[in-house]
C-alpha cells in the first residue's frame, strides 16, 4: 500500500515525534511546576524563553540550534567530543528541533492542568503523612494527568509537522532527517511529484486525526475516572 520511501518517511516522523515528546516531557513538567508554583527572580525571563519558539520564526530557532548544537558549537562540540554524539544532520537532531518547537505548547497545557489542581487536596495528603515529593507523585501528578496527556498529544502533532527548524538545523537528508513534512516539500519541488506529495499529505492527515482522536479518548477516560465528566 505504501511505498518504501513513504514508509521510511512515516517511520522516521513517528520516531522523531515520540523521542521528542518522551525526552521533553519530564522537563516540561518541571518547568510547568516552577512557573505555576514557585516565585523566583527571573521567572518572567524563563517564561519568555520557554515561549520563544511560539513567537520566533522556526528558521530562527533552527539557526540558534545550529549555532549551539553544531559540532563546533558550545554544547554540540562538547557532546561530540565527550560522547561522540552528533546531532547535526541526524534524526536525533531532528528530535531535538521538534522538541524545542513543541516545548511551549506542552508546558502551557501542563501548567494549566497544574494550576487547576486543588491545593487543598495536596494539604490533605500531607496531613495524612505524605512528604512533598510523595504528594506530587501520589496526588498532584494523577490529578493533572488530563493536561499532561493533552500536552503530549499536541506536542506530538506539532513535532510531526515541524518544518523550518528541522530543515535549518538538520537539513533534508532522505532516510535520516527527511520527515513527512520535508518529504512533502521535496516532492512538491520535483516535476510530476504532486501525486506522490498528495499521498504523503493524506498520510499526515490520517496521522493528525488519529492523534486528536486518541487524545480526546484518553482525556475523556481520565476525566471520567476523576469524576469530572
Amino acid at each position, binding site marked *: 500500500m505504501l511505498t518504501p520511501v513513504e514508509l521510511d518517511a512515516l517511520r522516521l516522523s513517528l520516531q522523531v515525534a515520540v523521542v521528542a515528546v518522551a525526552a521533553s516531557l519530564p522537563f516540561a513538567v518541571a518547568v510547568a511546576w516552577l512557573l505555576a508554583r514557585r516565585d523566583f527572580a527571573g521567572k518572567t525571563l524563563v517564561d519568555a524563553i520557554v515561549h520563544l519558539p511560539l513567537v520566533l520564526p522556526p528558521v530562527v530557532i533552527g539557526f540558534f540550534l545550529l549555532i549551539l548544537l553544531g559540532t563546533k558549537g558550545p554544547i554540540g562540540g562538547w557532546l561530540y567530543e565527550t560522547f561522540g554524539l552528533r546531532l547535526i544532520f541526524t534524526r536525533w537532531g531532528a528530535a531535538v528541533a521538534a522538541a524545542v518547537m513543541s516545548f511551549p505548547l506542552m508546558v502551557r497545557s501542563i501548567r494549566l492542568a497544574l494550576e487547576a489542581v*486543588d491545593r*487543598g*487536596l495536596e*494539604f*490533605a*495528603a*500531607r*496531613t*495524612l*503523612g*505524605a*512528604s512533598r515529593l*510523595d504528594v506530587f507523585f*501520589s*496526588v498532584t501528578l*494523577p*490529578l493533572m*494527568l488530563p493536561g499532561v496527556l493533552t500536552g503530549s498529544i499536541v506536542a506530538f502533532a506539532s513535532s510531526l509537522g515541524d518544518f523550518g527548524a528541522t530543515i535549518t538545523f538538520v537539513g533534508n537528508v532522505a532516510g535520516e532527517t527527511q520527515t513527512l513534512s520535508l518529504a512533502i516539500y521535496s516532492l512538491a519541488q520535483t516535476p510530476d511529484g504532486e501525486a506522490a506529495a498528495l499521498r504523503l499529505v493524506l498520510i499526515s492527515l490520517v496521522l493528525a486525526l488519529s492523534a486528536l482522536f486518541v487524545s480526546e479518548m484518553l482525556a475523556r477516560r481520565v476525566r471520567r*475516572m*476523576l*469524576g*469530572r465528566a
Partner: protein
Amino acid sequence: MSESAAERLRIDAAKQLGAFEFACDLDLPLSGLTAIFGVSGAGKSTLINLVAGMHQPDRGRIAIGSTVFFDSSARVLLPVERRGLGYVFQDARLFPHLSVRGNLDYGRRRAGARSGGAPVAFDAVVDLLGLGALLERRPHTLSGGEKQRVAFGRALLAQPRLLLMDEPLASLDAARKAEILPYIERLRDEFAIPILYVSHSPDEVLRLATALVLVDAGRVVTAGPISDVLLDESARQFFSAAEPGALVFAVVASHDDRYQLSTLACDGFALRVPRVDLAPGTQVRLRIPAREVALALVRPGDVSITNRIEGSIESVGSRSAGHPAHALVTVRVSPSTVLVVTITRESVDRLGLVPGLRVWCLVKSVVLDASALVLARGRAARPVSQPLPANDARV
C-alpha cells in the same frame, strides 16, 4: 512516643494574616472533644491550622506532650506530615483519582512506620462508619454525608494522636448533619482519640464538646471544660448570642411505662421528657431552647405544662440578634444551672421582670424530645451533684 493521659496540647502562638491578627495561649487536655467556637472570621480556623501546620506562627511555641511542632526561639518547625494528625475538612477533600478504599488506605499505609500504640484497625473503622458498601466506589458518586464519613475514616486510619475537624458538618443539610453527629460521638467515645473541633453552631458544640474554647476577633475569650465555660456569665452571653438555649446536664432517673415518659435528674430539679431508650444512670446532656421556655410569677396550677422549675432572674436584656420584640431573660434555677428564656419585651414590662425576682420556668415536655433536642449520650463533663429532684417538677 508515650501516650500518657497527662499529655496536653500547648498552643502559644501569634500570627498576622493580612490585616487579621491572631494570638492565643492555650493549654488543652488531650482527651475528649474540644470545641473551638466563634463567629465567622473570629480566628477558629486559624487556630486549628496553626496546629496542623498550614500556617506557620510568626512567633511562639506549639507542642503536644514532648513533641514540639513549632518553636520560634528554638527554631523548630515540624513538617505537616510528621505531626501525626488527622484532619477532617469542611469539604471532605477525598482524592478523586482513588476509590474509597484507596482514600482510606492513603494515610494508613504512610502511618505504618509511625504508629506507636494499638493501631486503629481498618475493619473496625469501616464497621463504625458504615463504609463497607462504599469501599469500591469513587468519591464523586458519594453523597455529602457519605463523603464526610469516608473523610473521618481516612483521618482516623492515619493513626493520629489528635484529630482536627474544621466545621465538618457545615456544608451538609440538617438531615445529613443528624446522620453524621452520632458518628462523631462514637469517634470521641469508642476510639478515645482527642478531637479539636471548629464550629460556629451552638447545637453541635453543646451536643459534642467536653471542653470549649471561645474565640472572638483573633483572641481566645475563655477556655475550659464546657460546663465551666457555660457558667461564666460573659462567655454564656457570647455563646448564646447566636441561638440562645441552656445546656443542662442530667442523669436518667427513671422511666414511666404507663405514660411513656422518662424522668431526668438535673442539678436541683428534675425534668419529665418523652421516654428515651437509655438505662437509668446514663448521663445525658440536653439543650433547652430559650424560645421553648415560658415564665410565670406564681406557681402555676391548672396548666398542661409538666416541667415547672423555680428560680430567680439573673438578667433581663435584649438580644443583639433576633426580632426587636424579643427580650432574653436568664434565670438561675440551681447553683450550676441557668435557663435562658426568650419572651416579648412587652411581657417583661407587664410582669415587671427585674433581676432577683422569683419566677417559675415552664418547659413543655414534648419539646424536650430526644431527636429534636440535644440529648446526647456522652460523658457529662461535670458530675451532677444532686441527683434527687428538690422541687415541684413532678406533677
